[in-house]
């Protein structure tokens, strides 16, 4: 078990290093000289040279890379090339906003998805099951930002149940915070809910057809107890989907945040990429990968707990 | 060697065997450092036109031996000779050349035919890779279908349209199209119903008489082996514990394991089964 944990952690660190390295070189390759983007086209060559020297862009690429990664390893992501504020400070401000939305959306999809999945698995072919099937087809494919546009128009503008835009920090008001993240989370979660539910429902039916379920019933166990067995066997696939969804939601959040005008990493990513602010982009990448690695690690632990065979590997 | 002399063939004990296996060892890697020795130094010969049985229970290594001959199992040490040529580690082109001589029929009549191919395509594939023209291939396929007693219009049908026994006939036809000299039969009848099993066994015997092909016949069923095999080797935990002519092994087993195996398989006659069970219980007590 310990070696299992060590292996997964090592793999996570390796992933983190590889992805940030990849992004570093990809960004430099793709963006090239960032100074026109940062200063605007009207800047003189002298101004550009000054900026290049200031941000260290005049050094060889490998030196820059070493400089960045050695600092990043200690948690120092450098400073933005535009306003020279430490990247870390910006992330500390912005990440909680995005995480609020994404974690809330993940919770929603887990709770509702599992509940719907079980109900449909218990009554395949029933009304709820048919609704799920229809919903899963449409909602899975529709992009979150499209859904959020619809939700904003409907709930916020027409019905005025929720604030259309803006973010309230939980420090200020917990209920305000909840109100401000509800619509963004729901628009993100809809697709994930049906994915989780569909996965669980199919897994449920598959397990239900397995021999041991019949044997359990033949021993006289109640339906509720048999269902518990089925559920445990069906859960790994749904859990895996849930973890995948988390990654997808992080990406989807970028666009949804812009629709709802939330000060999360979405608008930061957008602006940083438009002007070629590489340190900010790298910081964003690193932070998101850390979260993804953590979630996957958590998933592995849960899967090991659910299925004894996994533990032994 | 009385049994050899009064058997049907012009048995010559002096002829070189078609296939000879010497001290074969096969290891499967289960995990990084865990190895499982599936075969622990096994020796065996198969003569031309002969059917040699390999009988044993699951995990005895009988299927592994068949797979090793076909190059589907990792050989650790030992030697496999076919027609005087060392084929122990034949790979790539050399292994593909062997397809002319060694073929296989597997147990599972459902998994052994590609469900997306018509029977014609299934049977023509081994010929196509050998460079046979389409017209020739078609003629051979038609002949083989006839040999295994399947209607000629089967070529346009998919495997799913056939029953288990019929599929096994198709698998046998596929093994025969290249006119091999040896067919490895890996439990070819154990997934079939009893009545089907009997007819397929008869087909195997007829085909051997018609074509002179040799069989290495892997089975867990002593009854099946007795029906079709000239000689048999009994395997237990990766080793051959007893070999000999089928009649002597099945009627007067020498090794205790063979005796246990024989007494454990129930016979379809209540009175005789009662005797057999009593003998089995006695053997179990004494063990």
């Amino acid at each position: 078990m310990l070696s299992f944990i060590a292996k997964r952690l090592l793999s996570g660190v390796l992933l983190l290093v590889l992805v940030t390295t990849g992004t570093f070189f990809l960004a430099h390759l793709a963006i090239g000289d960032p100074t026109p983007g940062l200063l605007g086209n009207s800047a003189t060559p002298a101004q550009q040279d000054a900026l290049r020297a200031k941000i260290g862009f005049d050094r060889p690429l490998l030196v820059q890379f070493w400089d960045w990664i050695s600092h990043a390893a200690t948690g120092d992501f450098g400073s933005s090339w535009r306003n020279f504020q430490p990247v870390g400070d910006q992330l500390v401000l912005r990440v909680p906003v995005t995480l609020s939305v994404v974690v809330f959306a993940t919770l929603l999809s887990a709770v509702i998805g599992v509940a719907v999945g079980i109900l449909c698995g218990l009554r395949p072919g029933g009304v709820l099951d048919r609704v799920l099937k229809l919903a899963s087809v449409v909602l899975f494919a529709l992009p979150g930002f499209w859904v959020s546009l619809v939700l904003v128009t409907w709930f916020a503008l027409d019905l005025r149940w929720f604030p259309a835009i803006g973010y309230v920090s939980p420090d200020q008001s917990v209920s305000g915070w909840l109100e401000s993240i509800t619509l963004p989370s729901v628009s993100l979660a809809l697709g994930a809910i049906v994915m989780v539910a569909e996965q669980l429902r199919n897994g449920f039916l598959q397990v239900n057809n397995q021999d041991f379920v019949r044997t359990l019933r033949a021993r006289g166990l109640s339906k509720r107890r048999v269902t518990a067995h089925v559920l445990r066997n069906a859960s790994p696939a749904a859990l895996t989907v849930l973890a995948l969804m988390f990654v997808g939601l992080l990406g989807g959040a970028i666009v949804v945040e812009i629709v709802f005008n939330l000060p999360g990493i979405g608008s930061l990513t957008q602006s940083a990429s438009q002007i070629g602010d590489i340190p900010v982009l790298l910081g964003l990448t690193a932070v998101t990968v850390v979260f993804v690695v953590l979630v996957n690690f958590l998933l592995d632990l849960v899967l090991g707990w659910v299925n004894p065979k996994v533990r032994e590997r | 060697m009385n049994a050899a002399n009064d058997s049907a063939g012009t048995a010559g004990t002096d002829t070189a065997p078609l296939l000879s296996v010497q001290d074969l060892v096969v290891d499967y890697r289960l995990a990084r450092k865990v190895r499982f020795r599936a075969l622990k130094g096994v020796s065996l010969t198969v003569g031309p036109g002969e059917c040699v049985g390999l009988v044993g229970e699951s995990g005895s290594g009988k299927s592994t031996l068949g797979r090793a001959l076909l190059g589907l199992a990792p050989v650790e040490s030992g030697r496999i000779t076919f027609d005087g040529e060392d084929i122990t580690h034949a790979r790539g082109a050399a292994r593909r050349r062997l397809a002319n001589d060694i073929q296989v029929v597997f147990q599972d009549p459902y998994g052994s035919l590609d469900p997306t191919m018509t029977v014609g395509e299934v049977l023509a594939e081994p010929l196509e890779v050998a460079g046979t023209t389409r017209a020739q291939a078609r003629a051979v396929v038609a002949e083989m279908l006839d040999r295994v007693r399947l209607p000629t219009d089967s070529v346009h049908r998919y495997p799913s349209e056939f029953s288990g026994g019929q599929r096994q006939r198709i698998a046998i036809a596929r093994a025969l199209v290249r006119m091999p000299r040896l067919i490895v039969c890996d439990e070819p009848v154990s997934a079939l119903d009893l009545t089907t099993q009997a007819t397929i066994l008869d087909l195997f015997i007829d085909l051997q008489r018609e074509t002179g092909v040799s069989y290495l016949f892997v089975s867990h069923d002593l009854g099946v082996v007795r029906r079709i095999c000239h000689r048999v080797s009994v395997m237990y935990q990766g080793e051959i514990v007893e070999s000999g002519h089928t009649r002597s092994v099945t009627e007067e087993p020498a090794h205790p394991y063979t005796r246990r195996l024989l007494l454990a398989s129930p016979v379809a006659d209540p009175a005789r089964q009662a005797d057999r069970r009593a003998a089995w219980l006695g053997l179990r007590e004494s063990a």
Partner: protein
Amino acid sequence: MTAVPFPAALAPVKRISLGRRYLRRPLGVVALALLLVVVAAAVLAPWLAPFDPNHVDFTLTHAEPGGGHLLGGDSAGRDILSRLLHGARTTLYGAVITCVSGLLLGVPAGVCAGYFGGVTDRLASWVSDALQSVPGMIVLLVVAAGTGQSFPVLMVALGVFLAPGYYRITRARALAVRKEPYIDAARVAGVTNPRILRTHMLRAVYAPIVVQTALTAGIAIGMQAGLQFLGIGSASTPSWGQMMNDGFQNMLTYPLILLWPSIALGITIAALAFIGSTLADLISIRAEQPSRRARARVRQELTAPAATELSNRLPSGEHEHSAEDCALRIDNLRVGYASPSGVKEVVRGVSLDAAPGEVLGIVGESGSGKTQTMFAVLDLLPSGGTAVADGIRVSGREVSGLSAAERAALLGRSIGYVPQEPLSNLDPCYTIERQLVEPLRHVHGLSKADARQRARDVLVRVGLTDPDRVLASYPHQISGGMAQRVLIAGAVAGRPSLLVADEPTTALDVTVQAEVLELLRELQQEYGMTLVIVTHNFGVVADICDRVVVMKDGRIVETGRVEQIFRHPADPYTAELISASLDDVAGRHELDQAWARESPAALDRSAAHVGGEDDAR
């Protein structure tokens, strides 16, 4: 031994192509038609569009629909309809690039990983997992920032991030197919690896990939629109995402501008999603269940038989004992399943009985309905199965009219069940202890300690020498023979008066089979149980049964005491089954002798060189 006559020609089979079957699904047809409309709009945009999509006419700014501009004008004074049509072009062009690049990356990698396994698989899977863990949107924005307005490059990058979807589905399928014997057979037939990959493997993954492509296209279009919404892409190329951004800016004042591209996007994605789901249904990825109405129809048809086949519906088999004395008595049982061509009856009028303490064998070949008969007694038919009987009595009590809950209450208490496959009948996620103790506690009401003690005692009784280790084990940690003993222990732990065993030894080795049969016999005598044993093996019948029922095609052909059935089978089918068991038939030795006598030529033609070595005996 008589060979079964073989038909000279096969009955014609109606094969319906996937395309044909697709067109029978109304939802699928509608979705396909909508997609075709979008495709046509995209292809014909230059001719269909009434105006140049980039032509600015200030009078048209925020214009309402009408006046030659069917959908009005946008915030820059351009014709919305024309932009929508040209936007479809961009959308589909991008989706094609994305899908093709995802396909080209994911499918070959998946097929190779599944086929070759080992290092190839681990490496490819790691890369795929890594790609799925990368925050794709950020990287895409980086790419977009750098490559500026190069739309195709961006769409290829998007394809890279969607490739894991293809990879996972292809690999899973390839992995399953790799284990099929037909791949080994192809290798033995001399087929090269590239050819196996090209033919067998690619054919196997084809259908799931078509489904995946429909879904991927939908996702790709959504993400593409998202990127455009964020301001990525050339301003001179009209796109839906861009139009939605424009509409979003003016959402409060001119909601129509947002409405049109939203509808276009929603319809296109939904159409692709429905096409994918219809295809998935057709190649049965999603398990469908028969509706309640279908089940009612089966029941009705089983109870009210069609007059034409009445002879087939009369009860078959006979009762030996009086109804009151029976541990089990079945009267005219019929079992049917709903199928596309009506009701498929697998048991057609079966009557049998067994006295207390009697061992009854139900014997037949596959498809004879023997197992279905037994599941009907347990009321545990697979989903979709319906049983109808004039009467089912367990321990003298009529149970066929009872509710499902009352029937379930018999299980574990009055009726015990021993399944066929030892390992698939234990829950892989729980220890043996949990699985044995749970019914004892919650069905039989024992305390935790008592239940554990009882479980341990029963394990000892079924011959397991180290019960504590077995109790602590998970199913995958014990052998098949041990698992079957555990299952028997589970079946008899509740001391049922009737034990039904479904091919209890078929999956076991012969030596283990003998042990398990002996155990069943001992338990049956010790507890005085009635044992109903379903088997295809006449040796098993001869070994353990008192009476036997022979079944064929859902009906009983013969019932009788074991000695009588073996000695004087009344039905030719019974005789054929018994003779097929190879016990007394001639061996190869005798066969070859007979052959030599019949055809002297055989002596010359026979190539058998038997006894190539001195036997090591």
